[in-house]
């Protein structure tokens, strides 16, 4: 049994090496004094200095993160409600809801972007922060549903029925029974939504305007001149910050989790 886990860890280590190899590569070149990702030219902080002097870039980063964090949040809420709705629907309805849900995942970004652009101009929504936010919410919802739905399906109906039998209101059943049980799915959905939002270029490109820009749009537009190592420096920083956040979140939640458990035990004792 022990040996099996050891092999598993070796395998996992290999997967991590593959997942992180390109990122490590980017990070190494952010410290190169050269101008491109071709040959390493000796250590330098030049690109970091450039980055901090580039107020346009900093504004764009703030915009990008703001849109991503906020859009994912709203998408997660709507998507979770949607998944609950799909669960309650039956037969043909359910299948068509599920299919409609996935339309945005399969449609190429150009089509989505172009049709959203037409849609926003018809409605008279000013292109900029709001239109980008709405689009990001829109294309992140399906992945949230896909992440939450299996969790809901696994939820034993008897558990929910029991809650109702014990006199729980709908809201109580939702907040005390359903949501805690599906929270891993919700959190996973949030992070996937974040991924979609941070990476999107084509949709954002079409629906942005009036001085508002996101990182992907900027990076793609700069590609004509070759990827600037300033962007490597930026990615390195963003990566390290997210890593720090993930580690921080982990320790906080672990700590909080332990305390919660203690409280729960005490309450149990009191009863």
């Amino acid at each position, binding site marked *: 049994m022990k040996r099996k886990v050891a092999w598993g860890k070796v395998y996992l280590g290999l997967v991590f090496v593959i997942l992180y190899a390109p990122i490590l590569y980017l990070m190494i070149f952010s410290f190169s004094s*050269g*101008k*491109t*990702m*071709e040959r390493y030219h000796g250590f330098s902080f030049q690109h970091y200095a450039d980055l901090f002097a*580039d*107020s*346009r870039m*900093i*504004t764009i980063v*703030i*915009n990008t*993160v*703001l849109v991503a*964090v*906020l859009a994912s*949040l709203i998408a997660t809420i709507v998507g979770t409600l949607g998944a609950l709705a799909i669960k309650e629907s039956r037969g043909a309805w359910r299948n068509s809801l599920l299919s409609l849900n996935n339309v945005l995942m399969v449609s190429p970004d150009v089509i989505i972007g*172009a049709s959203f*652009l*037409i849609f*926003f*101009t018809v409605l008279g929504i*000013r*292109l900029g922060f709001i*239109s980008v936010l709405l689009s990001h919410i829109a294309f992140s919802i399906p992945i949230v549903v896909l992440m939450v739905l299996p969790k809901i399906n696994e939820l034993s109906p008897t558990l929910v029925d029991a809650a109702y039998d014990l006199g729980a209101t709908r809201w109580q059943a939702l*907040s*005390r029974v359903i*949501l*805690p049980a599906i*929270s891993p799915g*919700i*959190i996973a959905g*949030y992070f996937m939504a974040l991924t979609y939002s941070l990476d999107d270029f084509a949709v954002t*490109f*079409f629906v*942005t*305007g*009036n*001085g508002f*820009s996101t990182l992907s*749009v*900027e990076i*793609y*537009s*700069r*590609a*004509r*001149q*070759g990827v*600037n190592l300033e962007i490597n420096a930026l990615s390195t920083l963003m990566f390290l910050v997210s890593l720090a956040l993930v580690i921080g979140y982990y320790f906080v*939640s672990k700590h*909080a*989790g332990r305390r*919660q458990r203690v409280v729960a035990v005490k309450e149990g004792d009191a009863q």
Partner: protein
Amino acid sequence: MKKLWGALLGIIALCCLLALGDYLMNRQSNGTGGRTLTVYNWGDYIDPALIKKFERQTGYHVDYETFDSNESMLTKIRQGGTNYDVVVPSEYTVQRMKKEHLLAPLDHRKLTNFHYIDQRFLNKDFDPGNKYSVPYFWGTLGIIYNDQKVAGQDVQHWSQLWNPQFKNNLLLIDSARDVFAMALITQGDSVNTTNYSKLKQAQHHLQALTPNVKAIIADEMKMYMEQDEAAVGVTYSGDAREMMSVNHHLHYVVPSEGSNIWFDNMVIPKSAKNKQAAYQFINFMLQPENAAKNAEYVGYATPNKAAKKLLPKSVTADQQFYPPESTMKHLQTYKDLPRRVLGEYNDLFLEFKMFRR
């Protein structure tokens, strides 16, 4: 549940923080009372120091937005939603925009620095009399090769690319017009031909090139050539220059029998909000010292005669980027073809790509 609430609060707090940061950054850069000029250009296609200088000189705030292709830019302009004051399309797109009545005619009395531009780059087919456009940069389509793998005399002409010595060693640019231009010129036709049988012939000719073609790519060709991935590539002069600054074994050739010459141009869309500022900006960019500074930053060839004089001799005497007159007269610009014909180019190109393996 507590965990979810905690996460929710954390995210909202983060949003507030970011919104505050955004607000502060905006206030810092928008200090001058909200007169704004919106420029729509390719990414990294202007020296940022010039934007700052323009803001200081005129008191305008410049919103610099970027696009990655003429076509996607056009889609946005057509649809509206943002009022761009100055846009920098390539020449065939200028023609298209003109046809679709998206451009405002230029008032040449207000273009006080227009006379700095070299006569050779004015009054071209795509915009007779420069009624709508002012050249920003220009360049060519040509052959880039690595002197460690190829002798210079083997790649002076388009037809030499068909030589079996380049088996699986040629990179092409992913653009129907450019690839067909290469084939059409070798068979002595115009790069703007609308004759289907000539196109079909060109495609047939291209099929014979397939064993040599290693990949059909776009901007990333720079990285591939820099990294010695292939011996020969077909690319634009601007990209070639970038590659050569990194890898000194690379050289660029504009075939003397002819090639494409392209222009990126400043135009003012009809929907512009601040035309006054747009003229000021165009004049500012045409100032010889500004144009020279910009050319040095971007690295493309400048159409500005006075600015060219300010550039180092080593740059302007380089025939790879400022080709001799004998070659210049064989260069052709792309015309905006009817969409039906453009569709034929693209379908034939798709077929060429599909049946390549």
